[in-house]
């Protein structure tokens, strides 16, 4: 009986592999390829690499940074590169220009994401999880134009919160990074004068341009990597700090992210669906004569009037060779083709769970055209129908535009803000000064504590647009007298929980590791002497 089951199982596995991947007889001939570049998209690329291994495709990737990737692609030492910004023909930050031969490369998107602002803010000892910021205020926070949280401009964004008199501590990347490049590019495009003024103050005259190393001034923190920023912002002493990271880091650390105002007048969160919807408006430069051929034009994303738009959405590129060069040959092109087909379609299924956003239909269909240019590629009959990308259905319908949830009414500008938490703190609502939803406004200006007592009823509009979870507020409140009355302190739950047990276990193990060898040596050397 067991044997029969094993056979059936084997048959199933074999058929799944056979059906979903490139044919089995082709496996042996996939040549190994190597790539280098962006650390921002490394998690997504690594997941793709692991998944294509089952098809016999071996892909190497070294996340040493976008600039290093582009440099080594030009040197011909890697087969493909991943970069957050395209080749820099006229670098705005003063570095030496890169000059790839025209027609020797193509860009396709790898994975998309929104620049998220993780923050650590408390009012009366209770964590704020529903901060809202306009784009201008974001820029001012990160350029030193707003130095205290109770600045009137921020208070105007947050009518439901009594902002504390704390200094703002912007936390930026100390290493060169694609996140910085994407963030600064948005600031230049949307709030150029503020940014240029900041550049002058930080000593980087005449202008920084879009740069991958953030210029700093006194009062700012620069930390290495997304991990460094998250690590800083989430610590107890770091109240008042705000940093920019990949959305997944905020989720992982259970910290909230700021909602940013879009052109439709809604404050939105960089959730995977919001970012994907925003990128429906991303245009690709199709002017083959332009040095920016095939690169993203995000102006329409910044100015989109879809209520779900998140302004700071962008994607990073694969740079693919379109000619035989260096160590790259047609056999490798075949591997690269199969890998990128997979990356555009199937791989996008897991983007959201990795903290990225799936690529929408417009980007996928244009990159399928580009993949054809790789020398040696086996042009698959992959089209939008058989792509298996989660943002559109086999019949080409744009599922995303249809199904992505809209922000609730309380996210609208000038309306009292939603109490529901954001990002990694989605389950923790914040007390607001007045009733949630469009009914509010009466209690604005009152202190948080008073409001807690005077809280008004919850309404169905407290849904979190990202998770469609409308029960959060009510269940946490336990009754209709809701939101504001709920203590939201993170540290509050006392007593012995599983985390304390784990801590104790870790300490004991560590002690054993440290002290164990020494005692053991001592013991055995004693015995030998006798």
């Amino acid at each position, binding site marked *: 009986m067991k044997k029969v089951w094993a056979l059936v199982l084997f048959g199933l596995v074999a058929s799944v592999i056979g059906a979903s991947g490139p044919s089995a007889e082709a496996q042996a001939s996939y040549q190994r390829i190597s790539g280098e570049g962006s650390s921002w998209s490394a998690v997504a690329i690594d997941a793709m690499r692991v998944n294509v291994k089952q098809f016999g495709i071996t892909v190497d990737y070294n996340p040493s940074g976008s600039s290093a990737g582009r440099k080594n692609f030009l040197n011909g030492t890697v087969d493909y590169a991943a970069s957050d910004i395209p080749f820099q023909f006229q*670098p705005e930050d*003063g*570095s*030496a220009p890169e000059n790839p031969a025209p027609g020797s490369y193509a860009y396709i998107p790898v994975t998309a994401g929104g620049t998220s602002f993780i923050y650590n803010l408390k009012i009366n000892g209770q964590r704020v999880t529903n901060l809202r910021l306009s784009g201008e205020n974001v820029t001012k926070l990160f350029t030193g134009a707003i130095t205290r949280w109770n600045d009137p401009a921020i208070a105007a964004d947050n009518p439901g919160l009594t902002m*504390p008199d704390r200094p703002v501590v912007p936390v930026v990347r100390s290493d060169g990074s694609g996140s910085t490049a994407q963030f600064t590019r948005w600031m230049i495009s949307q709030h150029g004068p503020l940014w240029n003024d900041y550049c002058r103050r930080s000593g980087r005259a005449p202008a920084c341009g879009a740069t991958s190393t953030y210029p700093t001034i*006194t009062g700012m923190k620069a930390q290495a990597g997304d991990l*460094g920023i998250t690590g800083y912002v989430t610590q107890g*002493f770091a109240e008042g700090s705000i940093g920019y990271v990949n959305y997944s880091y905020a989720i992982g650390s259970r910290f909230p992210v700021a909602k940013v105002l879009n052109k439709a007048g809604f404050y939105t969160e960089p959730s995977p669906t919001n970012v994907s919807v925003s990128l429906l408006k991303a245009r690709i430069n199709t002017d083959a004569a332009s040095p920016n051929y095939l690169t993203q034009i995000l102006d329409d994303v910044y100015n989109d009037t879809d209520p779900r738009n998140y302004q700071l959405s962008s994607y990073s590129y694969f740079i693919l060779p379109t000619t035989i060069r260096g160590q790259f040959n047609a056999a490798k092109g075949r591997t690269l083709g199969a890998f990128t087909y997979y990356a555009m379609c199937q791989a996008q299924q897991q983007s959201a769970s990795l903290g990225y956003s799936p690529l929408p239909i417009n980007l996928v269909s244009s990159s399928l055209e580009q993949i054809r240019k790789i020398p040696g590629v086996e042009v698959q009959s992959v089209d939008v129908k058989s792509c298996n990308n989660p943002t559109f259905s086999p019949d080409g319908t744009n599922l995303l535009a249809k199904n992505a949830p809209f922000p609730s009414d309380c996210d609208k500008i000038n309306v009292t803000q939603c109490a529901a938490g954001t990002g990694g703190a989605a389950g923790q609502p914040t007390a607001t000064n007045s009733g949630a939803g469009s009914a509010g406004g009466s209690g604005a200006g009152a202190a948080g504590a008073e409001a807690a007592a005077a809280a008004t009823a919850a309404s169905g509009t407290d849904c979190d647009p990202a998770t469609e979870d409308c029960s959060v507020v009510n269940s946490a409140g336990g009754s209709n007298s809701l939101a504001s009355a709920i203590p939201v302190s993170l540290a509050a739950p006392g007593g012995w929980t599983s985390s304390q047990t784990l801590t104790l276990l870790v300490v004991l193990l560590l002690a054993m590791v440290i002290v164990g060898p*020494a005692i053991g040596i*001592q013991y055995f050397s004693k015995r030998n002497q006798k």
Partner: protein
Amino acid sequence: MLTQTETFVPQTEPESREPDPRTINTVRDRNDRIFRVGLSSTGIAVLAIMVAVGVFLGVQAFDALSETGVSFLTTTEWEPDRGRFGIGSVLLGTVLIALVAIAIAIPISLGTALFITNIAPARFRGILVSLVDLMAAVPSVVYGLWGLFFFQPGVIGLSRWISTWFGWIPIFSVEGAESNSALPNASAFTASAFIAGVVVALMVMPIQSSVMREVFSQVPLGEREGAFALGATRWGAIRVVSLPFARGGIIGGTMLGLGRALGETIAVLLIISPSFDIKFRILETGGNSVSSLIALGYKEASSFGLSALMAAGLALFAMTLVVNFIASAFVARSRSGASSEA
């Protein structure tokens, strides 16, 4: 295998007033020659590698250095692609972090070494020695992460205390601490040269301690017992016998630690918030070090930027080399026991 050394003694005239020194003719056999050649070639290889590192850095740094010249040592900005770069502030930051580290590490390592050699019961000595050596075996990234996530929150209180009471000393003052505010700003004390220095001190301590312990264990027993016989207390014996004898070793160990502190990369990189101002306020946010500058910058550097980083590396290399040479000179002196005569 025995080595044969034959000595030929030429005939000398017994009456000659000034006897010519005899010429000694050494004949080595094959094994001896192989051994000598083997040893000297490994010795030369070590030197050659050092020289190769220096030459490599020099060649790579040439582009950058030829553009800036001497101003490389004084400029405080770091924008190689705009032609304005120098290691003025970075070098100062490196030295500050190393000095903080040394100032904290010396008392701890000296105390540890003295305790292990003079005070601890013999049966605990082995355990203590292995414990200290294990501290040296912990990777620096672990120290860095530990310092960043565990240590830093705890040190803020100390930093604030120092700046509150000793803020009148310029290096301990902190700007933007808002200590009179109802919501004091802890962020003014984070990511500072002081915190980086404390973490580096813990990494440097085991090296210093084991060099010092080695020297203390060579203190002649007779002299110590003599001191005790003359009625000296344990502290007296340490002060009069151990410390003077081991002076060279203490200085040497300190300098070795300094060498490591100057070059420490990952822990500093994780903790410090890089800034390019000349500033001596060690408790305040921001600082820099050459090695973390290189580690942070090389990924995104252009080819000229890389050359500039190499130049910074060359400066650090030269500085560390000098420190280590001084250290080895001291250690060599103390091993011979010459310092006990002083």
